């Protein structure tokens, strides 16, 4: 396993996900960007497990996956709520915290 490659891949994946979160206005795409970041973290964790010869890291990835699933569900629920109230999932008009 080439650790350098893994790390670079994880860094690139994370930046792509971060860019998606910061630049896109569609909430769905933003949530997907967050999932990408989580995936990058998972990659790193598996690589670390291989580096040190442990399987505990893989279990940690397992748990992270579970939490990501729950979080995606809740995030989508919020998105549904937002759509009900504002009829859009664009973050362009979400300025209620302004002031």
């Amino acid at each position: 396993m080439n650790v350098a490659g893994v790390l670079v891949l994880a860094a690139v994946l994370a930046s792509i996900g971060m860019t998606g979160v910061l630049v896109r206005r569609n909430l769905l795409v933003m949530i997907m960007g967050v999932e990408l970041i989580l995936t990058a973290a998972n990659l790193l964790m598996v690589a670390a497990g291989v580096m040190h010869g442990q399987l505990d890291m893989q279990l940690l990835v397992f748990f992270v996956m579970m939490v990501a699933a729950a979080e995606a569900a809740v995030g989508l629920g919020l998105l549904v709520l937002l759509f009900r109230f504002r009829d859009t999932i664009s973050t362009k008009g979400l300025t209620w915290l302004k002031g």
Partner: protein
Amino acid sequence: MTDLLFLAFTFFIASSAMAVVMARNPIYSVLNMVVCFLGVGGLYLLWGAPFLAIVHVIVYGGAIMVLFLFVILMMNLNEVSPSKWSKWAPLVSIATGAFSTAGVALALHGWPTHYAVSVVSTKALGWRLFRAYSGPFELSAILFLAAVIGVVTMTRSAEKEQS
């Protein structure tokens, strides 16, 4: 051989991830995401984590992305976003990319770069999970329960008001 495979998978992952972020149609984003997860699954296989690879594809690609699709299709969120890119996009991507690679370079400082891969059997994972990590395992069930109750409550009260 493994290096070649690694490069291929990396290419999959990176390009589909970019497509996720750049696609104007949300359905395209979801589908590209699935491809990305398939690539990640492949990488896991390369690194001797078969169980994890399958679970990743099933949970992420099969459950979460399907959830996304449900939401898009049920609420008709299918509209295409305007093609106008934010002017900040290049800057943000370059900045985060640079930061990440700098971090990577620092992290790799002094470490050997090649490691041997040994396959981790599902049995071994199971032994470990249900012995040492049985507590967190049970707690995660409660986590899911909380998430389910939360989402149902959130989205239900609106219905109650409507009726």
